[in-house]
């Protein structure tokens, strides 16, 4: 019996002339595994294959021991949070979640209960009656996560789940994912920001150009990356105050202001930086609207590993 939650052997997917997956071979074990790679590496393609939304041109993929070519049964056990912001725009958040839960096969009463629980989890209960077309990107992201969680799947496929979220929501969701994994469920989570994945797991699969180029312990990869400083872009209403705060952190080597509401910080200790920034945002001392890692170093490592 295979110990893998997800197993891919020579998975190949073509989009006309372009190869989305190019003989992708990897094993994803129990617990949390990070799928890390630059934009366009094939992460979303692999997730769509796992969710039964793309058909392989070659190779095999199994999800929870079943071939991915038979998704109807597997989808009961899988929660998928796609990267694209598409939702049923004409519905309210509550209608949307209830509809998907009914499609999962829950009766009306159970669907209503689970819907409410999921909305509480992602902190959207107060806006449950508002139409999704009026939701911000961050709120949409939380709705997508809610629909992936609501039916309590054994396996969660989270494609860039922390995109567009504010620091407080990021911390809360990372804690939630860790809790889900402790309950014995499995998560495959993609990100192009290695440090987000690192907070949850040390098991990663690195992907580049549609191939798995490294698999296993994250710390060895990180050692490569930590040899160079990381640049982080922070969006804020108080750039001067934030810049002053950054200047006081000894691991920050450079601070600049590329736009009136943005601060660029270069740090030698990304994990300490993200932790400190999260604490600063939670304290309410300085408003932090968004954080984006300009992870050039990661790209360099990918290039190194990909040869």
């Amino acid at each position: 019996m295979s110990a893998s939650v997800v197993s891919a052997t020579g998975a190949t997917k073509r989009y006309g002339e372009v190869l989305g997956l190019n003989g992708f071979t990897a094993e994803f074990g129990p617990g949390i595994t990070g799928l890390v790679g630059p934009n366009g590496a094939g992460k979303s393609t692999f997730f769509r294959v796992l969710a039964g939304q793309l058909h392989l041109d070659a190779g095999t993929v199994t999800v929870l021991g079943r071939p991915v070519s038979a998704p109807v049964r597997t989808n009961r056990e899988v929660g998928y949070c796609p990267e694209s912001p598409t939702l049923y725009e004409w519905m309210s958040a509550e209608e949307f979640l209830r509809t998907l839960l009914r499609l999962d096969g829950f009766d009306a009463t159970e669907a209503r209960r689970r819907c409410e629980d999921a909305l509480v989890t992602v902190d959207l209960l107060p806006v449950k009656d508002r139409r999704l077309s009026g939701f911000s990107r961050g709120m949409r992201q939380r709705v997508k996560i809610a629909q992936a969680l609501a039916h309590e799947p054994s396996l969660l496929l989270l494609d860039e789940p922390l995109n567009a979220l504010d620091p407080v929501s990021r911390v809360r969701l990372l804690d939630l994912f860790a809790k889900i994994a402790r309950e014995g469920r499995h998560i495959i989570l993609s990100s192009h920001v290695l440090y987000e994945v690192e907070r949850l797991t040390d098991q990663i699969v690195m992907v580049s150009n549609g191939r798995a180029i490294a698999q296993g312990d994250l710390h060895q990869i990180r050692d490569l990356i930590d040899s160079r400083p990381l640049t982080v872009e922070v969006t804020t209403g108080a750039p001067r105050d934030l810049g002053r705060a950054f200047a006081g952190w000894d691991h920050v080597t450079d601070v600049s202001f590329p736009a009136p509401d943005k601060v660029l910080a270069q740090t030698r200790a990304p994990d300490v930086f993200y932790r400190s920034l999260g604490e600063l945002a939670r304290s309410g001392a300085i408003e932090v609207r968004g954080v984006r890692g300009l992870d050039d170093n990661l790209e360099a490592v990918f290039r190194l590993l990909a040869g």
Partner: protein
Amino acid sequence: MSISAPRYTMGPLAREPRWNRVRVIVFEGLMRRLGALNIVLIVLGSLIVGVEVVLFTTPAFVQITSFGATVGLSNFATPYESVAYLLLATLLVASAGAGAIAGDVANRSIALYLSRPISPLDYLIGKGSAVGLVLAIFFVIPGIGACLFAFVVGNVSIDLAALAMGAFVGVGLLATVVFSSLALLMSSLTRRPIFAGAAIFGVLVTAEILGALVQGVTRSSQSLFISPIADVLAVGQAAFGLTPAVNAGEALAILLIVTGVSLVIAYLRVRQVEVVG
């Protein structure tokens, strides 16, 4: 050292049966299809059927229009005696059916359907039923209402009213199934609802015009078979006791074949749908 493989336990599978899940797709699709334009078209269709049936079955109008005082089943056939009613239906088919599948692909909400335990067949049945319900409101309900009205206010016996109602229901359901399957086919062939709508309207109207043109040149009514509208008209006229321009049995066979082929192609297309980009 011992190695123990993890055990994967299935979650609660005793959830609602398949048809209840399909019903959710139908309901959601129905809400989407009942837009303002479609409601206007349904009202117009109802007016055509209602006015025509009343015109030819109530005593006062029967006298005025000198169609004779005796009302028979053929007096109810007026919606199926000209192409006006079915051309209006074509607009509704294009409007209500175009987005059935193409709309989900265009706005990518099909990704969320396909990530649920829904098979392509469930999806197609759900989408087809939603379109079919809207078309049935157009094709079946006005006929039933008009027959009841004629029975109440006109010199129409209960037997005749029931017979006419049966004809409206039978022909209406046939038209619903045929046009729904054509709409699903066109909607499955493109990612853009507007293209699907244009294709539905274009194919139906072009086939109708082409059939009539060829008939004019060849003096043979056989060419009318290529038009689903003419075929439905033929079956409708036969059901109401009139003599259609083409053989109604053959027209019915053609409609059933067209329906079957359309549904098979639509099913194969839905099976191939991928969420890209």
